[in-house]
């Protein structure tokens, strides 16, 4: 795991970027691109798509650093939320495209191995998460959080996918995140 940097480092660099400081941007990229890229890669399996999104995310950072408000959260969280949003947008557009062009070839769709992703143990292992905090959650909690955070499903879609009532899914996500919050000792952040 990466040594966590003091919260003020990221925030300070973002403030520099907002002033148009290219050196600050470069330092910010060097320090935090692995954080963004790791997440993007977990969302998008395609390395080319992941690379493209990484570049878009940091381009956005350069353009929109002025919108960052340190009172709303750390610079890392700000970056992670942006990376996640862009990667999920990309994932959805890839899925839409696949549906448009592949759907007519019924047999190919039927043959697509979707079952593998539904197995939470395999999915977590595949993403290298077995040893992580996420990997320590109960299977159903981790699965619900993964489907939301890494697959971009809405709560209703998660409920449909898992065949569980919506209320159960909401509770699972809350309990899972609360457990993670405690594990990482994120208090009064």
């Amino acid at each position, binding site marked *: 795991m990466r040594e966590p940097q003091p919260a003020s480092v990221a925030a300070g660099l973002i403030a520099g970027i907002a002033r*148009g400081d290219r050196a600050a941007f470069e330092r910010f990229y060097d320090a935090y691109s692995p954080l963004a890229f*790791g997440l993007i890669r977990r969302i998008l399996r395609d390395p080319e798509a992941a690379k493209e999104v990484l570049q878009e995310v940091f*381009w956005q950072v350069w353009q929109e650093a002025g919108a960052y408000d340190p009172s*709303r959260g750390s610079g890392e969280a700000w970056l992670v939320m942006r990376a996640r949003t862009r990667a999920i947008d990309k994932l959805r*557009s890839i899925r839409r495209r696949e549906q448009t062009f592949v759907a007519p070839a019924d047999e190919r769709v039927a043959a697509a191995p979707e079952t593998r992703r539904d197995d939470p143990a395999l999915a977590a292992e595949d993403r290298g998460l077995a040893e992580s905090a996420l990997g320590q959650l109960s299977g159903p909690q981790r699965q619900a959080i993964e489907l*939301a955070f890494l697959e971009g499903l809405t709560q209703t879609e998660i409920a449909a996918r898992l065949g569980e009532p919506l209320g159960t899914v909401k509770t699972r*996500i809350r309990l899972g995140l609360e457990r993670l919050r405690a594990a*990482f000792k994120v208090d009064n952040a």
Partner: protein
Amino acid sequence: MRGDELHELAAGYALGTLEGEDLARFEARLRGGDAEARRAVRQFEETLARVAAEGAEPPPPGVKAALMARVAAASPARQSDGARVVPLAGRPRRSVWTTVLAGAMAAGIAAIAVGLGISTRYERRLETLGQEAATLKAELERQAAVLAILRDPATQVVALNGLEPSPTARARMLWHEQAGGLLVAAGLPPAPAGKAYQLWAIAGKNAPVPAGVFKVDPGGTGSLRVAPLAGVGRVDVFAVTLEPEAGVPAPTGPMYLAGKSA
């Protein structure tokens, strides 16, 4: 609102999975400056940032150089640390108005650059979405046209049988005077290079009317969607000949399939 419910909404919000009324309600709370809601979101977002940090991965080479070049190219007016603007007082004999004007122009150029960047991004996205919508629409229209032909009792169904060059070939022609038709053929040998199969519609004693060319896959199967044919109503005979790839106005090659309507 119960504390559990607040945290449920905050967790969903941080994960980007909240929707509909829940989302609207919670966003209104955040906008209203609800400190408890904001704190809950902040904590969950920090938590997710830690989750992400556990999977940190070095980015591929090349991205940084591309970004730095883009930054340098797109915003030449922006300065890095080493080249700070000299304070106004330290400048030798320069009109205040020139400085104000230059400042205003720089601000304008920066605003235009940012605006262009944003609009280019959205234009690209809109274009992609537009293309996807057009593809879907075309596919839907094709399927709707085939369905309309299938549903209509006025649709003729004609079986075509293989002739001398390929006696085992078979085809079905669905034909509707106003909607056009669909030919599905099987068992045809792949057409030689430069050649293709051509469909003909023959009404009574009239000359055959060309109805389109098609090729078959290596398995010998092919299909052809036929648009309504001008001046052709009820068709008595459908036939398929082997012709030059581009098609010809009147049949010249050997006939592979033919069928008479009942």
